[in-house]
């Protein structure tokens, strides 16, 4: 702003400013507090980000992880300034939102591990294809020594053990991403079960939260389940390699998740589930997590604060992602995200300068 008029000679200084951007991203209109609610998946990252944001900008962002649905609900009711969700809002929710159009701004991507409990078989030693995974969850394959699983794993001796299918009992973005993946790769799954934050599972045990699924899989011999990567790593559970769209078998990794997001066909509004991504290096069970905010902000100061916060989170804030097991945005994803943030308006004018 201050350098708007002087284009010459300040080019170098602007470059330097662009490099450090120490105070850019801070609210410029005096807002000192913001409230946000939503997804639990990014909570560890957001709590770190907001802690740093407070140190950098002296602005306190109070974020509580009451669940993606809760975040959407509170945003609709306008009891919070912004929401966060692992899932995309549907038509009805958009019409019910009191403040008008809602923008979905992605912050990071994550990978989900397919974890199992088999005696003698360790992490990455089990390979699964999408159709086999779907049929296991559909209860069409009920024993580990089934021909279809064995044929994928010639070097491994699979035991005669009933498969105990573990899923989430509570609604969650993790389930949304997992079932979305299964629906894409298995017409039978799409038909019979579908995808959502909570579905009518064909079977077995429901665990509460990622913790519950991780613990159930660890305890039950012959169990299979799906958890966010961080939980699989922290709990030392074994995971399987999944074959992606390009035919490669991949472990769940942050690089795989970031690759899943780095595709040419990203829509402008970034409302896409990046499961079964065509990128050859992509891990197939990955997903974005979004921040939700109204496109038209009623309060100019709040609108400025929100836009600045989002900008900071998708730029300076990204450095905190990988240490906490989240995949930062790369390439095409960043460009589209920036354009989205610039769409936030207050009283008709773009909030972010």
């Amino acid at each position: 702003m201050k350098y708007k008029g002087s284009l010459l000679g300040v080019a170098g200084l602007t470059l330097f400013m662009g490099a450090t951007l120490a105070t850019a991203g801070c609210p410029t209109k005096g807002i000192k507090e913001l409230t946000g609610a939503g997804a639990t998946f990014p909570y560890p990252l957001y709590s770190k980000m907001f802690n740093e944001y407070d140190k950098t900008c002296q602005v306190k962002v109070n974020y509580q992880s009451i669940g993606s649905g809760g975040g959407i609900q509170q945003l609709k009711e306008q009891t919070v300034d912004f929401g966060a969700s692992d899932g995309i809002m549907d038509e009805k929710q958009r019409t019910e939102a009191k403040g008008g159009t809602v923008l979905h701004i992605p912050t990071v991507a994550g990978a989900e591990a397919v974890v199992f409990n088999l005696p003698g078989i360790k992490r990455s030693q089990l390979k699964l294809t999408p159709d086999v995974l779907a049929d296991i969850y559909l209860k069409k394959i009920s024993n580990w020594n089934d021909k279809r699983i064995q044929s994928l794993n010639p070097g491994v001796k699979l035991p005669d053990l009933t498969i105990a299918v573990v899923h989430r009992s509570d609604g969650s973005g993790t389930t949304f991403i997992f079932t979305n993946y299964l629906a894409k790769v298995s017409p039978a799954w799409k038909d019979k079960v579908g995808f959502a934050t909570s579905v009518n599972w064909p079977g077995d045990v429901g665990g509460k939260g990622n913790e519950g699924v991780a613990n159930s899989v660890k305890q039950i011999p012959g169990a299979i389940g799906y958890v966010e990567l961080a939980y699989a790593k922290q709990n030392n559970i074994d995971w399987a390699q999944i074959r992606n769209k390009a035919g490669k078998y991949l472990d769940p990794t942050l690089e795989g998740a970031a690759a899943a997001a780095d595709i040419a066909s990203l829509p402008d509004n970034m409302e896409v589930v990046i499961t079964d991504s065509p990128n050859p290096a992509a891990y197939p069970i990955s997903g974005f997590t979004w921040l939700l905010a109204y496109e038209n902000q009623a309060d100019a100061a709040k609108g400025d604060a929100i836009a600045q916060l989002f900008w900071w989170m998708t730029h300076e804030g990204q450095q905190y992602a990988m240490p906490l097991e989240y995949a930062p945005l790369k390439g095409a994803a960043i460009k589209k995200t920036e354009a989205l943030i610039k769409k936030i308006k207050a009283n008709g004018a773009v909030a972010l300068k």
Partner: protein
Amino acid sequence: MQGEPQATVESLNRGLPSAEVRPVSARRQVINLGDRIFYFITRSLGLSVIALALLLVWNLFNGAWESIRQFGLGFLIGTTWDPVTRVFSTLPTIIGTLVKGFIALTLAIPISIGSAIFISFYIPKWLRPILSYPIELLAGIPSIIFGMWALFAMVPVIRVIQIWLKANFGWFFLFDGPAVYGVGVLSGSVILAIMITPIITAISKEILLTVPREQIEGMLALGATKWEAIWQVALPYSRIGLFGAVILGLGRAIGETMAVTMVGGNSFAMIHSLFDPVHSMASQIASEFTEATYSLYTSSLIYVGLVLFAITIFISLLAQLLIWRLSKGKLAILD
């Protein structure tokens, strides 16, 4: 309304030899200003409880209306819960809740009352607080901690028991299920039993301690054994109060969400054995509410809450009936 003799009825209900109680005219009770004000205040407080309950019911109906209109009473007997195809019904969870609650009560009542009797009559006075305070402490543990302890420490033990039961008694339908899960009806019931025992014990102990010592000593002087004195005097005297303690435990058992969600198995299918995983209504509401993304979904969850409320009323009515029969026809809520 006023002016009925109450004191005599009270004594009769306790099964005590009737004292020479003189009925106190109600009019004389409220004759001075202090009494009038006091009566007014306590009555308002009492009626506010009714108001709160009615407000809650209205609130529940309001929230559940969309689902009620859509599914009607079929909600109670269907067995599909599918957020994708938007079909909801709740029979399996009703059964799950009732079965787990019933088993939990069956386990907890004898142990709690037995413990309360032990604390009240079988130990020296100085030992009582040493036992009582930790038990009260147990009542204050957050349910998530119960759940975590159950998942980490209790479920592996239950799993071993279940596998043994299935191996030796698998022909019995109750033991003919997926023993290896560990989580399920049995685990859910046991943790519930552990959670409600402190409440029932603490209140029962207080009630048993108010039994007049003279009554017991009288029995002992007549040559009764300690147990006979307890069984024939203390328990009947405090019967109604003990029932109140059980009711508090029952309330917790039915309404408990967090702990039972973590070890109940949470499957939405009709149960056939003690080892099957199953949801309870409260845990289902708590699990899915924050992620319920459309209004029919939230409305259906609130409908589940309403059904739970109705079931609690029904059970409480049954309990009242039971007391009524026990007291030989005198409605004992009010002595």
